[in-house]
């Protein structure tokens, strides 16, 4: 995901707003990303999207909408995509990458 400064827009549901994000996969070794919404202290904020874990091919992009209750908008500060890792049999450290956009 390109770190940007998204804004909340009206949705078709009363009391719910939405924003549209675009996810871009620059990692050849990753095929899935998990989306999350967080407050200033990185505590999770409830939200709805079609799929929290999104399959995306290498160098491809996917657009998706995130819906949030109007009452949570003040708290919501970051929308992040976190890479999901596959397990294997080696003893090693893996890399989870997270790209976060910020509401100003």
């Amino acid at each position, binding site marked *: 995901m*390109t*770190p940007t*400064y998204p804004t909340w827009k009206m949705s078709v549901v009363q009391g719910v707003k939405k924003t549209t994000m675009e996810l871009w996969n620059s990692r050849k070794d990753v095929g899935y990303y998990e989306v999350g919404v967080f407050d200033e202290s990185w505590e999770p904020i409830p939200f709805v999207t079609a799929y929290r874990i999104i399959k995306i091919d290498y160098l491809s992009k996917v657009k998706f909408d995130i819906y949030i209750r109007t009452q949570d908008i003040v708290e919501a500060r970051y929308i992040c995509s976190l890479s999901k*890792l596959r397990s294997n049999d*080696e003893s090693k*450290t893996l*890399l*989870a990458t997270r*790209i*976060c956009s910020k509401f100003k």
Partner: protein
Amino acid sequence: MKKLLITLSFILGATPILAENVDITGTVQSRCTVNMDTPGAYGNPNAFTLTTLPSSSGQEPIVRFDVTLANAYHAQVSYPTAFTSSPSLSDTVAWTGTVAVAQMSSSDQSGYQAASTTSGSMRQYALAHAGTLWVKATSIAVYGGGQAKAFPGGSYKSVVLASCVAQ
């Protein structure tokens, strides 16, 4: 002359207009990307320690940040504080680690490490310049709560979390 003009107008009128659609394509890539440069591996210098230190036959994971926009992002790297998979462990594991700049693409970035801030296991760099930054994370896990108990045999994995956060 008049006949020639009439003939020409018929010929031109009959000629199909050859138009071709020329596509303009472009790809907007992320202005901040995070990738694994070097995968990490644990060495096992003694029965109760797992470490990524090269002096103990480990390998420090190195993360690469590519930024094309200055003063727009924070890079955050956290060393592991738990195994994501391991054999069953009945005793506690003491975790330590460090995060440090391994390499930079420009001398402008030389102040990044000194200006960085920490919060628990996470170190944050303000990416004030466009360019590439390589950050290494060291992880040390000691088993047995100070009693030097041997790690059970098996496969151990942990995760370094690297984030690019809009400022």
